[in-house]
């Protein structure tokens, strides 16, 4: 009897349910014709732009905030355009920079934007208490490093100030012609100290945050979605679309399913195995990005202390075969600077040449290949890295007659091992922080923390430093060419493999969706049909 009673009760509660109210999600209130639906692959670790270091956080911050300058993505170029600063100039030695601040800018709580807000932002970024990972972005500024180390307590000694005309004056330790790129970066955006003081860590909650960009942060449901709403008081041309609904979807296949079902308007990072099919579709777009993939060689370890062996390895790798295998439109790279950047030259570097490679091996004393020491290529655990490493392994076997071993480690373990310098050949990548060759070139200087090859060349360091100061593009290119020749032709501590492409599907609903090589997504320029 109890059995029937239970069923009766269940029906009763079912009918009772109808007396209750349906949960209203904020997403339901967004009218489709005025909403762009986008996805990001992880929850943004933080929206506090002094602390954010990852691309997901930057994507959101970039759309709710502006920096002093911005990329002009409309032309697909990397030219800068005014944003919070209307003009900028420097002394001929690129050592002192002056930014003239716009007067008509208001924060979305109505307060006027001032140059001091930039100063506050930079102070907070450098302050040791903030413990910001990107504090080093401002290290070119005079005394900034000392302030961040806590050696100087007085921020007024740091080379940044506001002059009588209300302009922001920046004094650098050494001249840097590409310094304006730095102020496009989210970490250098102005902040509202008063707001942060009131709310503490929760100042980035939608109800507390104060911004001045084209969009306002309306909803942030952790791990689920973010909604941005057009800022009607934006100082520049207002955004075309009123609402941006951003779902947090970790799996690219899931995002693809939702796109197929018309639930997303644009997706990127398409699943690589699907690319051969997806690229035939009319919604497909792709563009190069400033990201490179390379193998570093530890030049202190035998047999790689011999430059001939390094060259032989380099020449025995057929990059085209690797990019064909990956099927992601990657561009084979033999030089160090990737395409679309000043100083790129496809003729640079050592080309695939198995005969020459074999000769070099013979010269190096390994005519009898069986005497060649044990060599290990290490990479962090990832399917694509594995495929590349296996291809390289096969090519070395085929062209040089050498059997190398492969070793993979989980990411953080891998990073730890890199620091110990035990690796012989290691996989690494680099994604540009700012679109200037300097970002790639300084990576391999002898004092760079990211150079795990133990290789260093005074000549290379000097060339890179000199080029960083120059503002004449032609002269800079000349120096970078010379430095790259040392790196990828003469000394060869690195084997560049390819530079990457970004792949998109953009639905027919979207009329304009500007893409750029920095991978920035600017929603204010997107238009729906």
């Amino acid at each position: 009897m109890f059995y029937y009673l239970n069923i009766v009760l269940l029906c009763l509660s079912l009918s009772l349910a109808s007396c209750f109210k349906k949960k209203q999600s904020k997403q339901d209130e967004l009218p489709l014709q005025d909403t762009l639906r986008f996805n990001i692959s992880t929850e943004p670790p933080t929206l506090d732009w002094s602390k954010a270091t990852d691309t997901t956080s930057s994507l959101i911050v970039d759309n709710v905030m502006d920096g002093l300058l911005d990329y002009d993505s409309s032309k697909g170029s990397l030219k800068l355009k005014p944003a919070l600063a209307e003009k900028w100039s420097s002394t001929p030695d690129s050592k002192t920079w002056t930014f003239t601040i716009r007067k008509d800018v208001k924060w979305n709580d109505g307060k006027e934007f001032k140059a001091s807000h930039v100063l506050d932002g930079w102070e907070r970024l450098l302050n040791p208490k903030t413990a910001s990972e990107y504090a080093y972005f401002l290290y070119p500024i005079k005394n900034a490093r000392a302030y961040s180390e806590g050696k100087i307590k007085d921020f007024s000694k740091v080379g940044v100030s506001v002059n009588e005309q209300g302009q922001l004056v920046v004094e650098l330790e050494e001249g840097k012609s590409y310094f304006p790129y730095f102020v496009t970066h989210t970490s250098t955006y102005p902040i509202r100290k008063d707001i942060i003081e009131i709310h503490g860590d929760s100042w980035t909650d939608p109800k507390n945050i104060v911004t001045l960009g084209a969009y306002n942060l309306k909803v942030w449901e952790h791990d689920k979605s973010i909604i941005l709403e057009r800022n009607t008081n934006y100082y520049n041309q207002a955004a075309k679309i009123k609402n941006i609904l951003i779902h947090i979807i970790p799996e690219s296949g899931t995002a693809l399913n939702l796109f197929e079902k018309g639930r997303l308007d644009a997706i990127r990072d398409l699943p690589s195995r699907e690319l051969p099919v997806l690229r035939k579709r009319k919604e497909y777009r792709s563009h190069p990005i400033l990201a490179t993939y390379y193998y570093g060689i530890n030049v202190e370890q035998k047999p790689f202390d011999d430059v001939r062996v390094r060259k032989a390895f380099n020449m025995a790798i057929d990059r085209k075969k690797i990019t064909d295998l990956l099927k992601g439109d990657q561009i084979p790279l033999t030089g160090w600077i990737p395409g679309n950047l000043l100083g790129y030259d496809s003729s640079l570097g050592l080309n695939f040449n198995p005969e020459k490679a074999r000769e070099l091996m013979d010269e190096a004393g390994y005519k009898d290949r069986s005497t060649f020491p044990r060599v290990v290529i290490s990479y962090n655990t990832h399917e694509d890295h594995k495929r590349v490493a296996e291809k390289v392994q096969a090519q070395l076997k085929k062209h040089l007659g050498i059997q190398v071993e492969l070793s993979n480690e989980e990411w953080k373990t891998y990073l730890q091992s890199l620091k110990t310098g035990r690796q012989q050949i290691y996989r690494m990548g680099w994604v540009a922080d700012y679109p200037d060759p300097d970002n790639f070139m300084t990576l391999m200087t002898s004092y760079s923390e990211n150079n795990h090859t133990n290789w260093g060349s005074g000549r290379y360091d000097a060339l890179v430093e000199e080029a960083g100061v120059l503002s004449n593009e032609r002269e800079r290119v000349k120096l970078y060419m010379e430095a790259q020749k040392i790196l990828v032709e003469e000394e060869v501590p690195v084997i560049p493999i390819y530079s990457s492409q970004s792949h998109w599907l953009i639905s027919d609903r979207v009329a304009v969706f500007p893409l750029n090589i920095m991978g920035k997504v600017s929603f204010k320029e997107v238009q729906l049909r």
Partner: protein
Amino acid sequence: MNIFSFKTLLSVFFFICLSLTLILSFLNYEIPSWLWLVDLGGLLAFFSYYTIKKRMLAYVCKRILGALFTLFIIATVTFVLLRTLPGGPFDQEKTLPPEIKANIEAKYHLDRPLMYQYGYYLSGLVQGDMGESYKYIGRNISSIMAETLPISIQLGIYALILSYLLGIPFGVLAASRQNTWADRTLMVGAISGVSLPSFLVAPLLILFFCFYLDWFETALWEGPSYYILPLLVLGTRPVSFIARLTRASVLEVIQSDYVRTAKAKGLHHWTVLYKHVLKNSFLPVLTFSGPLIAGILTGSFIVEHIFAIPGMAKHLVNSVTNRDYPLILGATLIYSVVLIFSNLVVDLLYSHFDPRIRLS
């Protein structure tokens, strides 16, 4: 038995409230706070009444004290193991300048001796503060758990209900029709259900139900049509497992003397099965239930990943990849609490199903 006794009416009311909560949450309706209170109060009242009536209060208290000690051990061991992992939370592709790393480590007390960090963590824990995430800067572990755990529990409860609702009848049916086509079909299904990984089942179901039939949504977590596929995928394995366990133990019980007696008395086949056999063959399923409940309630990484469900399981996995020490500890502790608690409930239920078992 008097249907209108106070006790019966109370339990009927409680039953209605509980099922109402489940139905409302499934239909994505707002659940008023009084309903939550009634549910919680009802569960607590039921739990205390049961323990006192069965004279198990001392036993439960002992178990809870033991659980606290277990949690302390778990926290300590996890803490120590984490520090032996190579690579730290702030190691990344772009190496940080040493002074910046020092600033960050100072902020999170990582520059202090290990014993200090351990003491600091424990003293926070005692006050209910699990610390701040390293990865999700400025977010408290408790708030991360408070936001993600309910979603995992919601999905988990649906999957659990499905598992018992389908698994047990399937098992009984297979056992009572042993060696017929029904038995074989069900067991082949169960074997496939146990052995097929969810990352295969999920895409197959998505392909069939979303792209061919267009019945459900492919992903996200917004309403009934979003819930069904994940709960099917999450439920597949437990349904199959429970069906197999039930079948095996029903087959064993069915041969005992008292069942023969019941049949000889002329009782209906199904009455014998459901009234006399099932209760005694439920023990193996119950044993399996403790870890099952804990595992399912804290979510499945793969199911949450594929369906973009904002649950807790991803933190159990990703926090380790990120070396986010406080989050790893927090997630581990939450999982342990759920596991210990569900094991306690299972032990209490033992004595209900088998009066020979005395807990004291």
